[in-house]
């Protein structure tokens, strides 16, 4: 038994089962909790693929940040009538049929590409040797330290990510200001509170 494979199946089963839990429960508080578990085990999948920095960021930004934001939204809008809203049964049936056909299409496509379906020849997983954090930080600063991994003719096209990084930073600043402005409660003095 390969332990890497075992943990892959474990984490993907947790992610998929709790993802289905998000879909099939009607209670919005439970949906948020199931989503926390699903995203957390997705971080486990990232660790298993050797992307330990992205996995850590998944835990910190997604599970620690975005979901806390969502749970705040649930708390701010959690009146009795909105905690549990049911979808009509006919809509659920149509959605399940469409979803099952889309899933069959995607999974079939995933296993049909031969290059993806075979593991590399010298398949050795060495998680402790994975050191991507420095390389990622350097790439965000515009320097690619991993150029020797690529064929000679591709190295000229390797780009640093300094400009996208700056754009994303400014984007986040604008988002912060815009979200704070929009979420503010605006009640004029002459207007009765809703």
């Amino acid at each position: 038994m390969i332990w890497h494979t075992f943990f892959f199946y474990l984490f993907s089963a947790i992610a998929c089962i709790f993802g289905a839990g998000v879909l099939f429960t009607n209670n919005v508080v439970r949906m948020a909790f199931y989503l926390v578990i699903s995203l957390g085990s997705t971080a486990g999948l990232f660790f298993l693929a050797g992307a330990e920095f992205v996995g850590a960021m998944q835990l910190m930004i997604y599970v620690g940040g975005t979901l806390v934001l969502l749970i705040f939204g649930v708390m701010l809008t959690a009146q009795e009538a909105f905690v549990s809203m049911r979808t009509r049964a006919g809509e659920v049936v149509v959605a399940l049929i469409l979803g099952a056909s889309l899933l069959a299409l995607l999974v079939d496509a995933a296993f049909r590409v031969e290059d993806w379906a075979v593991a590399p020849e010298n398949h050795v997983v060495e998680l402790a040797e994975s050191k991507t954090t420095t390389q990622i930080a350097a790439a965000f600063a515009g320097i690619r330290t991993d150029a020797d991994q690529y064929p000679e003719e591709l190295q000229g096209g390797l780009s640093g990510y300094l400009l996208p990084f700056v754009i994303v930073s400014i984007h986040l600043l604008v988002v912060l200001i815009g979200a704070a402005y929009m979420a503010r409660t605006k009640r004029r003095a002459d207007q009765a509170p809703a």
Partner: protein
Amino acid sequence: MNPFNDPVTVSHYMAVGAVLFVLGVLCMATKRNALGVLMGIELVLNGANINFIALGSSYLRSESLGLDGQLIALFVIVLAAGEAAVALAIALNFYNNHATIDVDRADDLKG
């Protein structure tokens, strides 16, 4: 045949990503709570991220995307955080104006 004896390939990761993607799309399509729709979007982005990580992993493929896959996944995570903040602000604004969070009631523009 024991599936635990075979090494994991990119296809396995793609299948997990596809499952999360489809669950997220169904969540977006069927939930009536605006926050449920938001959670569906998070699931979809996660399914896409799994594909990026799998194609960028040197454990799973000999000719992988390399660091680019992980960098794009990081950008997706950061942009998802921004998207959640703005969408939550819109949902709260809608809740303040309409006193409901049901997306089916957001039909002010209906002719």
